[in-house]
């Protein structure tokens, strides 16, 4: 066993073999318990995923809840401190609330704006024009690029003599103002991140909304037109209600994603930590400040915030989301 890489390879193969054996064991066990053949096969096949979920996600999530009540510097065993971390977070930490404010404002502003953008793009791409496949591919490309590369690209575009300021030069001249310094200006950090977030608009969201748009029955629209409805009315009274489940989905996923914004703010330097989103703060506390317990507490607070926002959207959705075949009493 002189070569450590060989040793690692052997270990990996052993783990793979063990999982396969476990899958057979699961199948055998379920069959012995008189489960249906298809059921047994199903559970056996999802076993690797289930193991992954429990070991790599469920366990860490539960463990972090425990750690959030401890002082844990990673190198020594965690020490129970009760609610101390949460108390410090809410009352003593001067960096916590600005970070919460930034994260929430970012989500609340960027997600609806981004949805409007995605909806507009999807409407455009839903038209049957020549080469539409090419355009659809083109608009999806940004979603495929690695987040870190995108962050660097945007940092460059927002530079004082970058692309965006060059384009805006005529405006600056007209208004007689100094070019904005975007990420280097504390007050413009949030707007810069929001503008940057639209990049994501052209990815998955557009595709989802496009699919939903394609599913809107033509008959409904035609019937409305026959009745004399304008395209605007058709869009707001028929198209939007018909795709409202997709909109809801995009909105909730958008909020969850926006609240967890991490890669871009980690890569983009901002003055005074003005661009420290909560998730970045969690990372900093846990991995550079030896405060894993505190970081866990912040992470759970973030989780709670996301839950609340999601629940609000969900509650509110009753009013405007229509599911196909649903009958409503006015």
């Amino acid at each position: 066993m002189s070569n450590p890489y060989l040793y690692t390879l052997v270990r990996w193969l052993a783990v793979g073999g063990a999982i396969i054996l476990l899958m057979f064991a699961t199948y055998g066990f379920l069959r012995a318990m008189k489960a249906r053949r298809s059921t047994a096969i199903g559970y056996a096949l999802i076993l690797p995923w289930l193991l992954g979920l429990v070991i790599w996600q469920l366990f860490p999530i539960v463990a972090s809840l425990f750690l959030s009540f401890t002082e844990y510097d990673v190198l020594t065993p965690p020490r129970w401190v009760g609610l101390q971390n949460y108390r410090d977070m809410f009352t003593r930490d001067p960096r916590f609330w600005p970070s919460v404010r930034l994260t929430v404002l970012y989500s609340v502003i960027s997600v609806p704006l981004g949805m409007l953008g995605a909806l507009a793009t999807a409407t455009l791409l839903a038209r049957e024009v020549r080469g539409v496949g090419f355009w659809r591919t083109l608009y999806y490309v940004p979603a495929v690029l690695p987040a870190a590369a995108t962050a660097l690209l945007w940092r460059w575009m927002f530079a004082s003599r970058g692309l965006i300021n060059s384009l805006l030069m005529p405006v600056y001249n007209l208004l007689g103002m100094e070019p904005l310094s975007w990420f280097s200006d504390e007050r413009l950090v949030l707007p810069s991140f929001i503008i940057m977030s639209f990049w994501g608009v052209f990815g998955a969201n557009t595709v989802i909304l496009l699919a939903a748009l394609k599913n809107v029955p033509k008959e409904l629209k035609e019937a409305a037109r026959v009745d004399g409805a304008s395209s605007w009315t058709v869009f707001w009274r028929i198209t939007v209600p018909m795709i409202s489940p997709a909109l809801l989905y995009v909105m909730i996923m958008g909020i969850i994603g926006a609240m967890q914004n991490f890669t871009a703010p980690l890569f983009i330097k901002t003055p005074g930590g003005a661009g420290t989103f909560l998730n970045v703060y969690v990372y900093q506390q846990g991995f550079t400040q030896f405060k894993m317990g505190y970081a866990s507490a912040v992470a759970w607070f973030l989780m709670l915030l996301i839950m609340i926002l999601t629940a609000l959207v969900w509650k509110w959705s009753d009013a405007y989301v229509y599911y196909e075949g649903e009958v409503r009493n006015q």
Partner: protein
Amino acid sequence: MRRTPKLITALLLTLSLLLTACGGTQTDSSDTQGGSPQPAAEGKADEQSASREKVTIRLATWAGAQEAAELEAIIDEINAEAETFQIVHEPAPADYYTKIQTMFAGGTAPDLLWLAQEYVVPYAARGALLDLTDRLAADDRPVADLDDYFPLVLEHAQYEGRTYGLPWVAQPVIVYYNMDLFDEKNIPYPTDDWTWEEFRELAAQLTDKERGIWGTSFNGWPPVHMFIWQAGGEVISPDLKSSPIDSPEAIEALEFYNSIIYNEEVAPPMATVNEQGFSEMFKAGKIAMFFGGASDDLDRVEGLRVGHVRVPQGPKNRTTFAWTASTAVNAKTEHPDEAYEALIALTEGIHNWKIVPPRKSMATAEQIIKNEPRKESGAETIMQAAQEMRAFRIIPKHQEWDTIFWEQVQEPLYSKKGTAAELAGKARASLEEVLP
């Protein structure tokens, strides 16, 4: 009645959405751990038999490709000679400390590890590092002779009188200057006896805003600590009991630093530095005088004629900051004796590779040129700078202390949100709260 199942479904859906969304972002960070090979030493339980099989000593470093190849050549030589151990190098150039911490938490930490100066004391104070004091005292090999190390460099590897690591490098800061920019304006090159005021004066003369050329560039680097030391002040007292950053000496240094940083008369504004890159601007010929570490490649740029000079002298002395790193031994290593032997051999090897070896007997121009032939023209300056070099004084909660010092003193000062005296006076209490 009908609302309850609906509510439960909604909650479940929310939870599962959260889980998948969380999962999505976490895969990015988790695969950094999956990829690292972990050749476990624990598998070799059979060594207590008389067979003199070599013990595997795992060494973690942040060495990148080129550096790792050079280091591995040294390790190969050591392994060939060693009878009791075999060093296995595990480089982790990205997210090094994240990985190290995770490995300590998971009980798979390496036997030997590189730690930059900020980390030795924090790790040692938390019991993660092996106390080397007695072994070093009983060892008469030259590399184990602590008296030979520069005391203010060695300090970063010591806590409460015990030694937890051997420094393998100390890179004093020197000033690299662009000869062409001096020649253009017929300004004589700086000499080793220059002072703060002369430096600032030169920087003003060399600045040519219209052409995008500045006399110097600061952005938090060089560390303001160095200027505070040069003024006769301290950021943390030797007994680690106080942080006198509001002393007249410290204020003088903070004010001097603040008169340079982002002041367009002598240095580029922050936005320009952020966009064009800090050292990149010097390499692009846009900065006349730049503070760099001794082994930086600033003097190897095609088409750039670069001179070396010591940092300007402060009001009291010319203490030079030195970026320093040590190799330490994991407290939980299964083979402390072999790990110690490996540490000694490795440190000796690295002292003959990196500049500057942090030992008085080796901080000579000849040794510097031998270790790094490309530094021939700067060797004399580096050697002299090394005589007065000093690393940071580190406390167990260094990272917290440093964040406060940056966020409550330096940053607001550099963005003109207060005077040095106000900010330092206010921050001192918070800084002292995290002292041991």
